[in-house]
């Protein structure tokens, strides 16, 4: 039960076989917007101070924990969780012996309706993360933010730093007001493909929550669970809009959206494709084949059925051992432990793929 995976190696170096644990979703953030000032043009520094802007984006739900983070992930110096590299190294990377980590900064700059301000903040955030995180620890690879509301500005940012050897992903969100397969974004995806950047569609976002059929759920718990619906909608959009026909080298990581629903989504898309092909004639092969070739899902927060064997059966239904990337979501409260998250019933060969090999192949890690 395997399928071929394209190699994607930004550095041209051979994959390192000593890599045994890759965490495909770790979060980093700035301490405050003041961290960005050295990276912003004067005009935006003045604008931000005049307006009193603190951090763009807001949380629509009180989280069940402060900063949605583990209680023990708040650094002793009082900085926000995930903003202190040394603390993250000690508590997470060293402790779990993580060989490589994909860092996903979550920040609302890309959602700002003022695309010029958003572009300036995205660029500043990217530069800060490259200097203070991604270039400071060889285990770290980074995701970049883009001002996606303006395709020209987004492409400009990709052209500016998309070839940086530590940048391998564009971070996007599931709660986004838009569907990522739609055509206004295609110039951006062309630039992403050119620079071998994965599209990382992460749980949450800074748009009004609309994961559940148009209405906003009342509770964080509902929203947290039903983001899987948004993930499904983005996958359907990317497939039906022909993104993978247009950009055959493009890859997508679905991050923190769950994974047990994937077989059902593939079955439903394939079924509808058989009867609706004439509406999207550019889909010359079944959606499930496209999904297996272009899309991967991170494991966290992993589903926990009463009988762990059911999880193994679900993975089998995906039709490929290559689909899953292990992730912890550190420092957030719904963290998955590398020692406990995967059921023991999963065979060693499959565990090895999930813990490391799939991410090495997909991201071209060295």
């Amino acid at each position: 039960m395997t399928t071929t995976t394209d190699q994607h190696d930004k550095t041209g170096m051979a994959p390192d076989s000593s890599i045994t644990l890759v965490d495909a979703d770790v979060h980093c953030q700035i301490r405050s917007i003041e961290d960005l000032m050295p990276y912003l043009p004067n005009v935006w520094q003045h604008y931000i101070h005049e307006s009193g802007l603190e951090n763009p984006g807001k949380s629509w739900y009180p989280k069940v924990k402060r900063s949605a983070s583990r209680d023990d992930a708040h650094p002793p110096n009082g900085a926000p969780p995930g903003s202190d590299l040394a603390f993250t190294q000690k508590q997470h990377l060293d402790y779990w012996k993580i060989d490589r980590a994909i860092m996903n900064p979550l920040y609302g700059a890309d959602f700002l309706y003022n695309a010029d301000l958003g572009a300036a903040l995205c660029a500043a955030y990217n530069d800060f993360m490259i200097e203070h995180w991604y270039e400071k620890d060889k285990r770290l690879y980074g995701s970049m933010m883009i001002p996606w509301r303006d395709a020209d500005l987004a492409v400009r940012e990709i052209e500016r730093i998309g070839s940086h050897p530590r940048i391998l992903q564009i971070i996007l969100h599931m709660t986004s007001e838009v569907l990522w397969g739609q055509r206004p974004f295609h110039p951006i995806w062309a630039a992403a493909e050119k620079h071998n950047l994965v599209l990382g569609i992460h749980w949450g976002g800074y748009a009004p929550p609309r994961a559940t059929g148009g209405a906003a759920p009342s509770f964080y718990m509902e929203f947290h669970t039903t983001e899987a619906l948004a993930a499904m909608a983005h996958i359907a959009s990317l497939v039906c809009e022909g993104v993978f026909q247009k950009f055959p080298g493009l890859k997508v990581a679905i991050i923190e959206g769950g994974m047990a629903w994937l077989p059902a989504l593939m079955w439903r898309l394939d079924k509808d494709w058989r009867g609706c092909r004439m509406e999207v004639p550019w889909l010359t092969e079944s959606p499930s084949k496209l999904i297996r070739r272009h899309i991967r899902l991170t494991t966290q927060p992993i589903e926990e059925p009463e009988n762990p064997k059911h999880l193994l059966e679900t993975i089998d239904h995906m039709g490929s051992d290559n689909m899953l990337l292990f992730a912890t979501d550190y420092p957030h409260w719904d963290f998955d432990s590398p020692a406990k998250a995967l059921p023991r019933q999963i065979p060693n060969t499959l565990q090895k793929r999930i813990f490391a090999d799939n991410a090495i192949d997909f991201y071209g890690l060295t």
Partner: protein
Amino acid sequence: MKKKKIAALDLDQIPDGTMQAVRVGRRNLLMVRQGHQVYALRNICAHQGARISDGVLTCTRRGGHVGEYVEEKAGRIIRCPWHNWEYDAVDGSALHDPKHTRVASYQTVVEDGKVWVMV
């Protein structure tokens, strides 16, 4: 097993560009006419068993660039009345999976104003 040649219907009973359900022996068949050529298919969808003769005879759209719609195979594509599966009248193949999914097709000949089916 040697096939029998059985008269299915008179050619003028099936106007050009149309399809018609007929019973030939114990078989329910769908006849599709394109000019002087008549195709015969088993009249049962390979999916959930609908009579494909209750669907429409039409064309399909060819896969091309994203956003491009090009019609082809006009008058020889049968769309199932239930779930819209498309079959090519020429060989009974389902357009979504022509190598593995099809309805049976039968050889035909037109002689003396009649359509004969080899079953």
